[in-house]
């Protein structure tokens, strides 16, 4: 399976994403610069964390208009797995691939620490290796993770089971309904503030994020074995 790790000016979790796909999963991975114009050779797209374009104007607002984003939209429409973590999530929101928007953390502080997440939906291509309601520990590192959407959007998210991760216990940023990660209605675009790629080895303080990446590969192998 071939993973694309999109790199914007200011991305800083691209190396961790690459490491998760290449070294931990043992799959193929390649960095793709933001002004590239094709993702055709890839089976999955990873949008890493960081501060693309310095977070100028709004987080993800400028990255969203990078040439590669047209290709990310195409990949999403084609049903390929698209994972956006932290700034990657913010970019997906700005691009309209996921509903809602980010506000500054309620505390106005940048928060960097491990948090407990609850897997609310384990029937996605990103979470099938987890148990439903399993509590996992994944680090967060963000100043703008205070997810917001209007009531109608929230009702839709709930009705379609699109809330994939919630903060368990304390909500670190004030997000609506303790939301930490959501998926699109089609079920192939996941955005989350916590960093699963920073939790793929006990040496890093935990490996609870590894199952997320393994789920993607598992799903891909299953669908492609059927076709073969």
């Amino acid at each position, binding site marked *: 399976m071939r993973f694309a790790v999109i790199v914007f000016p200011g991305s800083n979790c691209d190396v961790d994403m690459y490491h998760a796909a290449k070294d931990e999963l043992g799959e193929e991975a390649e960095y793709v610069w933001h002004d590239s114009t094709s993702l055709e050779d890839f089976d999955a797209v990873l949008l890493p964390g960081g501060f693309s374009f310095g977070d100028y*104007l*709004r987080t993800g*607002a400028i990255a969203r*208009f990078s040439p590669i984003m047209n290709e990310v939209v195409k990949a999403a429409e084609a049903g390929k797995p698209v994972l956006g973590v932290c700034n990657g999530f913010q970019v997906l929101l700005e691009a309209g691939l996921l509903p809602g*928007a980010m506000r500054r953390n309620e*505390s106005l502080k940048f928060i960097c620490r491990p948090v407990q997440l609850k897997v609310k939906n384990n029937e996605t291509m990103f979470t099938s290796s987890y148990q439903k309601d399993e509590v996992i520990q994944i680090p967060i590192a963000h100043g703008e993770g205070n997810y917001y959407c209007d009531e109608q959007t929230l009702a839709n998210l709930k009705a379609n089971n699109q809330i994939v991760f919630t903060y368990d216990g304390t909500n670190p940023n*004030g997000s609506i309904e303790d939301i930490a990660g959501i998926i699109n209605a089609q079920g192939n675009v996941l955005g989350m503030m916590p960093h699963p790629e920073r939790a793929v080895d006990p040496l890093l303080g935990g490996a609870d994020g590894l199952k997320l990446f393994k789920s993607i590969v598992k799903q891909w192998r299953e669908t492609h074995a059927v076709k073969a």
Partner: protein
Amino acid sequence: MYKVKVYVTLRESVLDPQGTAVKKSLDTMGYPNVQDVRIGKYMELTLEKTERKIEEVVEEMCERLLSNPVIEDYRYEIEESVVL
């Protein structure tokens, strides 16, 4: 040439954590009569005249990039300046 001033603020329905912090600070400084503080952005754009209607162009830019319609409102002022 046009000078365009764009003001972007969080929507009324969206809680503004920065505004809330500033309001609290003003309150402790002895301004208890401050009812609300909303923090926003101010941008100045200089535009050349084109065939398109200036209002249409500015609104398009506001909708697409300068504001995020999910959480923000915008308003703008357009001044036509004479190039000497």
